[in-house]
């Protein structure tokens, strides 16, 4: 059971990394950015490509992959999302989905369709109450906590963070103050993309990299955003961990149903919200 709990917190931590970017774009621009899944998958494949070239150094390769994902994230924001922002939300959703399709095929083309394994960077396992669990997972869980505290500092103490928080609440109000909201959105958008890539890289040793990984994680990350409240950053953290536990505990008893259970939880939350309102 403790094993499942640790596993759940690990999954939850990764979901938190991926969901932050979605939650911010969703809270500010009201669009669901399917291209987030593309950046996530692309980042992991970058990482796999860099890994042998830097002598198998996990950290350096991860940093390189994140650096490589920055222009991709920026281009998506600048040339697709911003051009469609304020016009029609549906078109923005469809355009980002189109990017996901193109990205998935590009991955299949360049790296092939066979899932690729990544070896775990920390080979140490703990023995605990008869069950063993790898140190790596504990590190991931802790890094999510660090990220949560870091983001809280960023959004409370820095000017950019405060503007974004204000814009999450009332985007037009912030624009009325004469601030160019778009500029701050692109910074936060790229930040969200980087975090998604980081989440993907941390997840890669636990699962494997395959071209459709972006599709799969996106739906679950979206469920996290819905359950946590759109644009609610603390809510995203709590719901990511909670849904991570749901996945782990369901997976223990009925492995195929793990992802589906997340959507069931999301449906229950939606029903509850719609009857409360």
């Amino acid at each position, binding site marked *: 059971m403790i094993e499942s709990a640790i596993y759940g917190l690990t999954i939850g931590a990764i979901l938190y990394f991926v969901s932050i970017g979605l939650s911010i774009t*969703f809270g500010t621009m*009201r*669009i*669901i950015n399917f291209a987030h899944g593309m950046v996530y998958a692309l980042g992991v494949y970058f990482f796999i490509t860099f890994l042998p070239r830097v002598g198998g150094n996990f950290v350096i390769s991860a940093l390189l992959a994140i650096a490589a994902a920055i222009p991709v994230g920026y281009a998506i924001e600048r040339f*697709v999302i911003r*051009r*469609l922002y304020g016009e029609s*939300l*549906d*078109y923005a*959703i*469809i*355009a980002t*989905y*189109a*990017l*996901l*399709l*193109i990205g*998935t*095929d*590009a991955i*299949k*083309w360049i790296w092939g369709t066979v899932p690729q394994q990544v070896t775990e960077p920390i080979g140490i396992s703990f023995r605990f109450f008869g069950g063993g669990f790898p140190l790596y997972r504990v590190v991931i869980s802790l890094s999510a906590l660090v990220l949560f505290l870091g983001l809280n500092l960023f959004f409370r103490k820095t000017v950019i963070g405060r503007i974004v928080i204000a814009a999450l609440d009332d985007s037009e109000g912030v624009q009325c103050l004469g601030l160019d909201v778009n500029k701050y959105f692109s910074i936060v958008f790229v930040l969200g993309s980087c975090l998604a890539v980081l989440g993907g890289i941390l997840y890669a040793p636990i699962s494997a990299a395959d071209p459709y990984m972006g*599709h799969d994680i996106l*739906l679950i990350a*979206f*469920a996290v955003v*819905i359950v946590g409240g*759109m644009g609610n950053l603390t809510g995203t953290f709590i719901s990511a961990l909670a849904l991570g536990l749901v996945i782990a505990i369901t997976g223990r008893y009925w492995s*195929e*149903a793990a*992802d*589906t259970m997340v*959507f*069931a939880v*999301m*449906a229950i939350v*939606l*029903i509850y919200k*719609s009857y409360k309102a």
Partner: protein
Amino acid sequence: MNSKADVMHGIRPAAKGAVFRDMIIIAAFFVALIPVLAMHRVTDFMIFCIFALSFDLLYGFMGRLSFGQVLYLGTGVYASTLFSLHVSTNPLLAMLAGVLGAAIVAAALGLIVVKLNEAPFALTNLAFNQIGFFLIGSTFQKITHGEDGISSGVEPWGFMDFSNKYFAFCFVLFFLLFTFYMLTRLTRSPFGIIIRSIKENELRVKFLGYDTFSYKWITFTISGALAGLAGTLYTLYVQFVSPTFIHPLNNVEPIFAVLIGGAGNLYGAIAGGVLFMVMRDSLSTHVPQWEWILGGLLLIIVFWLRQGLAGFVRILAGAVSNRLSLRRAAGGGSQ
């Protein structure tokens, strides 16, 4: 009430006769396609067109973009197949079961999703589709045979024999025309005007005193039932079903068809459906990975071709008629 009726009358654009004229044109179009493509493919295309029409009602007319319409297609497919295997082999009863099944699922889920809009609506539908796919592919594996798929138990009944390709063509064409007729009447009725108004501005419709929830819910259910109809036709025609019919990744297909044809335009949905199927057939045989082409075309539509083919044709027709009238004016001047 009197003034409202007047307004409605003013908006109603075309007379009844025009609908029948259009239906004849559509029928002639598909018959004319037979020599170009094979008949079995045209039948296949027409079923997809019914599916695209069901999506057009939801997205084109009511402005609700769903990423989960395939769920209702798949429900139609599996409800009719399982009905034919376990209850009765009569094709018409199987169809009825499929359409009813899809309508019931749509009505039940509609109660939840219809309250949402925009991105939450799109993705909640996708999530439900994922659950449906899981239920068909995994949970009820004993009944549905999961990924392996099952053959339907539908048997010929009287003259209704779906292995006869002429009969299958006529049967599917009949249902395509039926769907087209029903949707034309529906979207031009007072009910349809409310739906289209919800797309433009739901709040105002509410202020006018309409209960928008029930309008949206009824439309969602009709759309689901029509998608189910397309699904039952697949059951009858293909006679072998597998979870690909309910796979969430296929949701891009109706979206693409409706967008390329021009959302909110029934001819557009049919033209887009045919165009998509032709594209899929020809591309997938030549290019192993062709989805990026689909993505690229979607981007082009979103950025430069908002009205789809219908808008393109309209612009072209406008330019031609302008040119003609200019020429006529010039000719008249010289005389």
